[in-house]
């Protein structure tokens, strides 16, 4: 039986989403929901919330934050998991500060030598921080872990 404890899976559509779906097995014992951008490539499933892409239009970050608040109030996630991109930043800060969620961040496998902007922003908050290239470990602090990558 699935645990009622909820996990929020947060990512932009495309490769970040493919990476989350690669790890879906890790979440199978829990209930979870997706939070992603409203785009053509977005997942078409019932458990998915969409917000407008604030990397395209920074003003939509304001409505985005309200939307995140609404979703978290409704779903009450205990853990947030993200592979990026910047959609993780407001979600992780709101989750950590207002809802005391635990945070898992998996740096995208596109980051071989250079940390992503999102990675730098969320690193201090995360409870589990995974990178997909060993070469990236030295760029982050001791909290970063490498256990392998998806590509």
């Amino acid at each position, binding site marked *: 039986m699935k645990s009622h404890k909820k996990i929020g899976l947060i990512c932009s559509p495309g490769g970040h989403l493919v990476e989350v779906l690669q790890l879906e097995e*890790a*979440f199978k014992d829990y209930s979870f929901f997706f939070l992603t951008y409203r785009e053509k490539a977005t997942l078409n499933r019932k458990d998915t919330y969409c917000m407008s892409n604030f990397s395209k239009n920074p003003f939509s970050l304001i409505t985005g934050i309200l939307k995140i608040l609404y979703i978290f109030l409704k779903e009450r996630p205990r853990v947030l998991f993200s592979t990026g991109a910047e959609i993780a930043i407001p979600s992780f800060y709101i989750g950590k500060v207002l809802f005391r969620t635990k945070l898992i961040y998996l740096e995208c496998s596109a980051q071989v030598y250079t940390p992503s902007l999102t990675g730098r922003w969320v690193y201090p908050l995360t409870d589990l921080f995974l990178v997909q290239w060993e070469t990236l470990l030295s760029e982050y602090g001791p909290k970063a872990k490498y256990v*392998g990558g998806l*590509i």
Partner: protein
Amino acid sequence: MGDSAKRVRAQSKICGRLNLIFVTVGNDFRAFDRLLKKMDEIAPSLPEKVLVQKGYSTYCPKHTEYFDFVPMNLATEYLLKSRLVVSHAGIGTIILCKQHGIPLLILPRRKKHEEHMNDHQLEVAQALEKRKDGNIHVLYEEDRLREKVLEILGEKGRGRTVEDMGRLNLIHAVREFLQTTLR
């Protein structure tokens, strides 16, 4: 669970590196000392750490860590951390290695050495050998064990690397975190 198993477990939580050759002889009540003795003899000259599940075998390796039995989930964890699994021709191990794409070297238990009740393991080994599956390797006598192990580990594209295992290791790391966090 023996001390050595606990130690390996503790280490395995720290990182998901593939650094094992996992030797497993299953749950049959008969000993499979032939494999264990040879493995023990060659272990110091192998490039990876050898961990042995000896089951009811009487022989206790001197050069490797070993345990008799551990729960299934832990055995699977060892399997997932292995670059190569060396085992009897037991179905459980064969299925798990096939499922996870882990290179497997099998040495069938033989009736003539009183390692099993009949020679079904020989038949299984022969049938699998015919299939020429790149991930399953077969030996019938233990004398060439070292050469065979080194050959599999050394072959390009054979013997798993941490890169091959990324997805499973990541799933494992996330699951482990969730299990401890969401108790």
